[in-house]
C-alpha cells in the first residue's frame, strides 16, 4: 500500500481555512457565493416551515382524537399510588425526624400540613356537595354547572383530632404526630369493590408489636362516595379524601420504619418496582 501523505503544515491549514471563510477569487463566503447562501437559506426556511407545519398538523389532529374528559388508556394506572403528608424526602426516602423539645425541627411539618389542608377548608370546598350515602357516587349525566359533575365535600374537620383546628400543632410537641395519608386520583377507578378501602399502618418487619394508631375518619376509611373520580374537566373542584393517622405510643430516640397500606379489593400494594403503589413507607424518629 502506498504512502498517501496528506501532511500539511499549520500555516497551510490556516491559509486553507481563511480561504474557506472568504475566497476573494470566486467571491465565496464559506464555500458559497452570497446569492447561493440566500437561495440555500430560503430553501431551508421553506423546508423547516413545512416541517413545522406538518408537526403542528399532526399534533392538532392528535388533539382532535382525544377525549377531553378521560385519557384513552390507563396502562400504568391500574392501582393508585399512596402519598404521605408531611412529605420530607431525605436520602433514604420519606423521613419524619424531629425533636420534641426543639420546635424548629417540627415547625416545617406543621406548616406543610396546614398548607396542605387549606384546600379542605369549608371555603375551599363550598362548591362541593355534602354526601351521605356510603356507596359509589356514580354520575352518568352532567349534573353540575357548566357541564360538570358533582364532587363530594371533604373538609378538614372530618379529620377530627388531626384537623389542625383543635390542635394546630397536630400533636407533634406531644410526640403523638398526625400524618395524613392520601390516595392518588385515577379516573373511573372503583376501589374496594363495594367496601370502603381503609388505611392500615404497621411497623415494617416487626409484626409482633402492634402500632398504636388512631385513624380519622373512624376506621381510617376512604368513603366510597368520593369514588369514582371523573377527571379534572368533569369535576374541577374534586378533592381527594384523606385519612389522618395519629401515632400514639412511639418510643423516643429510636428510629422506626412504618408502612401505611390502603387495604381494599383492586388496590395492589405488593409491586416490587413501585414502593408507592397502594402503600407508603416512612421512617420515624422522635427525639427528646
Amino acid at each position, binding site marked *: *500500500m502506498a504512502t498517501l501523505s496528506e501532511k500539511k503544515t499549520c500555516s497551510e491549514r490556516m491559509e486553507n481555512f481563511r480561504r474557506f471563510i472568504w475566497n476573494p477569487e470566486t467571491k465565496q463566503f464559506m464555500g458559497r457565493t452570497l446569492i447561493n447562501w440566500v437561495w440555500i437559506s430560503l430553501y431551508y426556511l421553506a423546508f423547516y416551515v413545512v416541517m413545522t407545519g*406538518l*408537526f403542528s398538523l399532526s399534533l392538532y389532529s392528535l388533539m382532535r382524537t382525544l377525549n377531553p374528559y378521560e*385519557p384513552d388508556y390507563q396502562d*400504568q394506572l391500574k392501582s393508585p399510588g399512596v402519598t404521605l403528608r408531611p412529605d420530607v424526602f431525605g436520602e433514604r426516602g420519606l423521613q419524619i425526624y424531629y425533636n420534641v423539645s426543639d420546635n424548629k425541627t417540627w415547625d416545617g411539618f406543621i406548616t406543610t400540613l396546614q398548607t396542605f389542608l387549606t384546600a379542605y377548608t369549608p371555603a375551599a370546598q363550598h362548591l362541593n356537595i355534602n354526601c351521605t350515602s356510603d356507596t359509589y357516587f356514580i354520575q352518568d349525566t352532567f349534573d353540575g354547572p357548566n357541564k360538570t359533575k358533582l364532587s363530594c365535600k371533604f373538609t378538614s374537620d372530618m379529620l377530627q383530632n388531626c384537623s389542625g383546628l383543635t390542635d394546630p400543632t397536630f400533636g407533634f410537641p406531644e410526640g403523638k404526630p398526625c400524618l395524613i395519608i392520601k390516595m392518588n386520583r385515577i379516573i373511573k377507578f372503583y376501589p374496594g369493590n363495594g367496601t370502603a378501602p381503609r388505611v392500615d399502618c404497621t411497623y415494617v418487619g416487626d409484626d409482633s408489636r402492634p402500632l398504636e394508631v388512631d385513624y380519622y375518619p373512624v376506621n381510617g376509611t376512604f368513603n366510597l362516595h368520593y369514588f369514582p373520580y371523573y377527571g*379534572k374537566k368533569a369535576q374541577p373542584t374534586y378533592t381527594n379524601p384523606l385519612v389522618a393517622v395519629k401515632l400514639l405510643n412511639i418510643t423516643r430516640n429510636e428510629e422506626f420504619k412504618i408502612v401505611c397500606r390502603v387495604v381494599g379489593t383492586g388496590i395492589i400494594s405488593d409491586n416490587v418496582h413501585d414502593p408507592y403503589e397502594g402503600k407508603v413507607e416512612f421512617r420515624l424518629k422522635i427525639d427528646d
Partner: protein
Amino acid sequence: MVGGFSILLWIGAAFSWISFGIQFAQGAESPFDNLYLGVVLALVVILTGIFAYYQEAKSTNIMASFSKMIPQQALVIRDAEKKELPADQLVVGDIVEIKGGDRIPADIRLIFTQGCKVDNSSLTGESEPQSRSCDFTHENPLETRNIAFYSTTCVEGTATGIVINTGDRTIIGRIASLASGVGNGKTPIAIEIEHFVYLVAGVAISIGVLFFIISVSMRYKILDSIIFLIGIIVANVPEGLLATVTVSLSLTAKRMAKKNCLVKNLEAVETLGSTSIICSDKTGTLTQNRMTVAHLWFDDQIYSADTSEDQTTQPFDQSSQTWTALSKIVTLCNRAEFRPGQENLPVMKRVVVGDASETALLKFAEVVLGDVMDIRARNKKVAEIPFNSTNKFQLSIHETDDRNDKRFLLVMKGAPERILERCSTIMINGKEEPLDSEKAEAFQTAYMELGGMGERVLGFCHLYLPENEFPDTYPFDTDSMNFPTSNLCFVGLLSMIDPPRSTVPDAVSKCRSAGIKVIMVTGDHPITAKAIAKSVGIISATSETVEDMAKRLNVPVERVDRRQATAAVVNGMELKDMSLQQLDEVLCNHSEIVFARTSPQQKLIIVEGCQRQGAVVAVTGDGVNDSPALKKADIGIAMGIAGSDAAKNAADMVLLDDNFASIVTGVEEGRLIFDNLKKTIAYTLTKNIAELCPFLIYIIASIPMPIGTITILFIDLGTDIIPSVALAYEKAESDIMNRRPRNKSKDRLVNEQLAVYSYLHIGIMQSVGAFVTYFTVYAEQGFLPTTLLGVRVNWESNAINDFEDSYGQEWTKYQRTYLQWTGYTAFFVSITIQQVADLIIRKTRRNSIFQQGLFRNKVIWVGIFSQIGIALILTYGLGHVTALNFTPLRFQYWFVAVPFAILIWVYDEVRKLFIRRYPGSWWDKNMYY
C-alpha cells in the same frame, strides 16, 4: 481507522463512571444506570478494537516468506572435504557445488561450470533459463554471467562457486529489506474514513460542548449537564458503522475472490476502485504465456492462424500441396512430446515436454492434423541433429509413410535467413521452383512483416534424398553429416507469438472508458511489446508513436512534435538515462505508454512517476524483484500462478488466474463498494439526528426524556447493523465503468452534501415523525403535549409520587418512569420504522427506486425484516426486563410514524427526479451526494 470514535466513546464511558461515582457518593437512588452505560460503552470500544486487531493480524508479514525460502542443505567443500551443511551455516568464502534442480544457497561467483543454466524468474521475472559461465561479462552483478543468486534455481548442468554474500546481504535479501522499507501509508479508504470520523466527531463535540454550556447556563446541575453530554456523544457516534464498513469490505473481498481477485488487505478493495493507472506486466497477464503459431507464409502468401485459448480447428486454406509438405516438416522436425495420459484433455491444455516454440508447433500440428505421435511413428526417424546456437537449425531424417516411396525425407527448421541460405529451390503450389532473387525478395518482405509484428519466425525446408544414393541401409552419421544440408527446397515460414488473452482487449477498452490509463511494463523487446499493446488496445489503432510519425512524415525523429504523439514506447535503456522530469513529461504527454526492456527495478521508478502525477497506481508483478514496486504502488497485484511468494506477500491483492481482465472486474467491484459505502454511511448518519434531537429538546424544553442512551445503542448496534451491511449488496446505479476514477482530493466518501442531506433533511423528518409518536403515546396516557413542557424537574423527582397529569390523575414516580420507557420504546420503534424508509431511499443516489427495482437486492429485504424482527423482540420479548428500558408497546404506535416514512420516500424521489431532470443545476449541486 477506529481511533477517533473510540476516544469519543471512552470519554463517554469515563463521564458515565464519574457521574456514577458522584451519584453513588451522594447516595442517590438508582445510580447504577450510569455504571452500566459506561460498561456498555467500554465494551463497544473494546469489541471494535478486537475486531480491528483481528483484521490487522490477518495481514501477513512480508519477511516471513524469506525465511521459508532458505534451502535445507548445501554441498560445501571445507577442509578439503565435501560436506552437507544447512545453508544458513554458509559463510563468505565457502566453496559450494550445485547441480541441476538445486536451489542456490547464497549469492555465489562461479569458478567452474558445465552446461549450467539458472532460472532467475524468482528474481528478475524472466522465465527463460539463463546460461551461466565463469566469464565476467558485465559490470552490473545482475547482468554478469558468472554470478548465481540466492533463491534462484539451477535448471541443468553443474557448477562450483565461491559464496560472496549470505542471508540479508544477498541481492534478494536486499530487495526484501527494500520492500519492507517502503513506507506503508494510508489507503484511500482509510483517509476517507478518517475524514468522516473527523466530521462526525467534530459535530458531536461541538454540539456536545454547545449544549453543555447551554445546560449549565440554564442552571442545570453540572452532573446533569455531564449526563446530557454523554447522551449527545452516544447519539452522534455511529457505533456500529466501522464494523459495518469492515463487513461490507470483506463481503466485496469475498465476491472478488470468486472472480479470481484474492484481496489480502481489506482496504485494498476500495483502492482498486479508485485506481487511475494500471501498470501491467505483459507475459502471463495480458498474454496467455504460451507461444502459439500466429501466422504462416507459404505459396507467397501470409495466412493467419487462430490464437485463441480454446482452438480446436484452424480455419486457413489447407488445400495447397505446399501446406501438406510444410505440415509434414512441422510434425516431424520436432522433439516435443505430449506427456502421456492426457488424451481426454483439449489439445491446448495438455502438458508438453519441450521448449516453448516446439510446444507451439506440436500443439498447432495436433490441432490441424490430428494424432501427431501416430504420424511420427509412421515416418520413423533415422537420424537427428538437435537445435544449437551455432547451427541455428534443427534437422531430422525420416522414412516416409508411403510404402512405394523408398526415399528418405530430410526436414529442417531454424532461423529463416539461415534456412534460406541452404535452399536453392522454393515450393510454390506444391511444385519446386528455382529460388530466384524475386522469390527471395518476397521471402524477405514476408519475414520482415512477420518480424515487425513482434513474432518469432521460423523457416522450414525439406529434401527427399535420392533413393540410389541413400538406400535403405544407408548409415546416417550426424557428426560427419554424410548427407546434403544445402540446396534444399524452401517450403514456408511459421511465426509464433505469445498471444493476448482473448478477454484482455475487452478489459482494456473497459479501462479506457473508465478513465483508467493502462501502461504496459515488460522485459520484452519493444517490437513484440508494441505489437501486443496494439493487439490488446493499449495502443489504439489510430494513435502513433513519435517513431511512427517520423516514418509517416518522413522526417527525423527529433523534428517530430512529441506532444502530437499519443502513444509512446519507451525502452528500458532510454528510461535509464531519463531524468525524473523527463519521465514525468512522458507520463503526462502520452496517454498510451509501453515500457519495454525494463528491469523490475525500473518498475519502481515508473510507479513513483505515476504517483507524482497524483494517480492511484495499481501494479502487477510476479518476481521477487517486483516486490518494492508492489509495495510502493497504491495497490500491488501479484500473480497467483506465476508469482513468487515474496511478490504475493508484498502485494495487496493476488490474481488467481493471472488475468488482466480480473483486475478490471476488481476495479468495478471497488467502485461499487465506494458508492455503496456512501449509501451505508448516509443511512447510518441519518438517524443520528433523530437520536440527538431528543436530548436537545429535553434540555431546552424540559420535557420527559424521549429516548434513553441504552435504547440508542440498541438502534446503532442492533436494528441498524444488518440493513447497513445489506446496502453493500446493492447493484450499481449506472455503468460505473463509464466514469472517470474518483479524484482523491475532491470526491470524498462523506461530502458536505451527504452530511447535510442526511442530517438536515431526512434526519429532521425522522425526528419529527418520532416526536409525533412520542407525544401521541404521552397524550393517550394522559399527558397532553402542553402539560409536558417544563415538567422535567418534578417529573424526575423521586419525592413526588402524586404527579398530576392533564386529566387530574395522579402518578407515582415508578408509574411515570414506566411511561417514560414506553416513550423510549415508541421513539425507538418510530426510528426503526422510518429507517426502513431510509434504507429504501438509500438504495439509489440518482435513479428512482423503481428504476433500480425494489426487489432486486434481496438482502435489503433481509435487512428490513431483521430490523423489524429485532424491534419486535426487543419490545415484546424483552419488554419486561426493566434494565433494558423497553416496554411492550401498544400495537398501533408502530404505525404513527408510517406517514413520515412515506414522506421521506416521496421527498427523496422528488429530489432524485430533479437531479435527473436538471443535471448541473443548483439542485443537483446541493442535493446530490
